[in-house]
């Protein structure tokens, strides 16, 4: 089991190397190699998660290692789809090292799952977890695309066309990809929140218990809702959308880690270590 995770990390690491080689050498086969290596890593990662699921009968989110691992798996999956759809080859230099780093850190954490009471493995629970994680993965990638946008925009505005100007795609493609990520992420997050409410009603008898995680998830959701609203109504695109995508992801990170470490609540167990 651990060995599969280790091999997965090695695949992610190789993929990172592939994408960085592509960044410098600009040969298409390097980028393809990076993509296939990441896909192989994703496949192994899926096997590891499936094994954990069958072994325990639960979605493996019972400690920080497991949640981070599931988050990485979601990012890898969303990235594979994204690159397939938008052909944003260079995004690999963000996604692959992110996966490698987070997985390597998570690997060092204790892997003993905490005992959580009041968990019922019904459909709502599964939908809640998967939707929230896929949504957050999309936001993570939107943040990466936003960073690339800012780098490229800076190059064009300041008229110093260096290393990155030649290697990054057009602002239009970056903007469209970021927008796509946010729409996907927002849809999934909405689904995740709704299924979470339904689950709470079924299990605890109330939709909302003002748990800090719930509150912060709501704030995050509002942030992205505002971003989408402004884009549709006032045409917030380009730089402003990119900055918002980065701020939004900061909120996601706080909801994911900050709340658990700084505040107390019924989601806390999932990220204990």
């Amino acid at each position, binding site marked *: 089991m651990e060995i599969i995770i280790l091999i997965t990390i090695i695949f992610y690491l190789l993929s990172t190397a592939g994408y960085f080689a592509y960044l410098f050498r600009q040969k298409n086969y390097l980028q393809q190699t990076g993509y296939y290596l990441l896909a192989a890593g994703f496949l192994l990662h899926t096997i590891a998660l499936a094994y954990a699921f069958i072994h325990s009968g639960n979605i493996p989110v019972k400690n920080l290692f497991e949640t981070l691992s599931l988050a990485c798996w979601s990012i890898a999956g969303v990235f594979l789809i994204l690159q397939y759809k938008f052909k944003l080859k260079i995004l690999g230099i963000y996604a692959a090292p992110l996966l490698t780093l987070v997985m390597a850190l998570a690997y060092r954490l204790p892997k003993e799952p905490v005992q959580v009471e009041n968990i019922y493995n019904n459909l709502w629970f599964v939908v809640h977890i998967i939707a929230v994680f896929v949504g957050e993965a999309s936001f993570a990638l939107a943040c990466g695309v936003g960073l690339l946008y800012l780098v490229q925009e800076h190059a064009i505005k300041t*008229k110093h066309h260096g290393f990155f100007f030649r290697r990054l795609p057009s*602002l239009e493609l970056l903007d469209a990809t970021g927008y796509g990520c946010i729409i996907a992420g927002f849809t999934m997050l909405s689904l995740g929140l709704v299924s979470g409410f339904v689950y709470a009603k079924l299990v605890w008898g109330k939709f909302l218990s003002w748990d800090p995680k719930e509150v912060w998830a709501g704030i995050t959701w509002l942030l992205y809702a505002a971003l989408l609203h402004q884009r549709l109504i*006032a045409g917030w695109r380009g730089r402003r959308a990119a900055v918002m995508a980065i701020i939004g992801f900061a909120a996601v990170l706080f909801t994911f880690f900050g709340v658990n470490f700084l505040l107390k609540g019924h989601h806390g167990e999932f990220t204990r270590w």
Partner: protein
Amino acid sequence: MDEIVLLGINHKTAPIELRECLAFSHEETLTALETFKASAAISEVMVISTCNRVEILLATDNKTKAAETAKTYLSASKKLPVAKFEQALYTHCGDEAVRHIFRVAASLDSMMVGEPQILGQIKEAYNTAGLKKSSGVLLNRLLHRAFFVAKRVRSETGIGDHAVSISYAAIELGKKIFGSLEGKKVLLVGAGEMAELAVEHLLRNKSGDILVANRTFERGVKLAQKFKGQAVRFEEIIDCLQLVDIIISSTGSPDYIITRDQVKGIMRIRRNRPLFFIDIAVPRDIDPAINRLTNSYVYDIDDLQGIIEENIEERNREAIKGERIVDEAVIHFRQWYENLSVVPTIVALREKMDSIAKAEIKKTLQSLSHLSDQDRRAITRMASAMINKILHDPTRLLKSYEAHGKNSDHLNITRKLFGLDD
């Protein structure tokens, strides 16, 4: 054995006045090829003449005489004393000539490194030589290798990648902003060669409608017709900003034609869709403060010039990789060339043996008149079998050295040992 010799002048050695004087038109090239072909010293020849170079590529067994012939012809046909151009003339032989022609074809020797026209010009010169049947084994092989090297350099290095003209640099920038230029609407303000060139490049990239604004409406209409676009009045420019994506400006106006506040208002109506201003005018037409608004980008002529300079540096860096590919090709060509001289040596050796055997058999058979025809044939067969056996090892040795490209010493010794050059 023929050697490759190249004589020429180019933009580095000769000023434009001299290059003009020595340039060959198509007809002049044909005449020159015929004259050179008739010369005893020259066995193959082609002439390359472009605005940056005039070069005569020869295969000859007497390079001093061939070079002399070429110089005399240049002087006579261009009515210019040899002394006038001798300073600028370079003469390369063997490997150096091969390297030179490879570099020229790969556009490493061009005034603008990486410019693509030179390859076409060399192909044309080669076709002309083919027309007069003045190219042979050596030049055919050399030129085919040159085309191959040029293709390799272009595909394996970034030598031709980045724009080195103002209008191309603007197009490249547009692509970095909009992704594809397809369907992007263009507003041309004013007129001018560079601005119109940029519009033509945009049209080639399938840009959308072209609007033309000119102080004189009539001139605007004429220009619009040229691009199949639409003329608008000068006062309408600001309203047009709602519709277009790319603005190319080139007027003689002393003041800004489009100001920051105007664009700021327009951006709200455009819902922040990006605007790209290309300001070719001096003094400038577009307020540079517009560049600080989000989603608007302003490039003036100096900015574009700066990009071109960066791109040229990049090309020069890529050219180093190109030189490596050329070096490799020169080595391969030399190997082929040296192989070429092995075969005649082996043939000459065999011919000499055969002629000795033939003479000796004849002498011997004259004194052995009692032999039957069958016996005579057996003796002849034995002699040729002996020659085959004797020559087997030397032939194999020469051929094996040829593969390693270090046969010249052995060839030399073989030729001396058996007196093949007598």
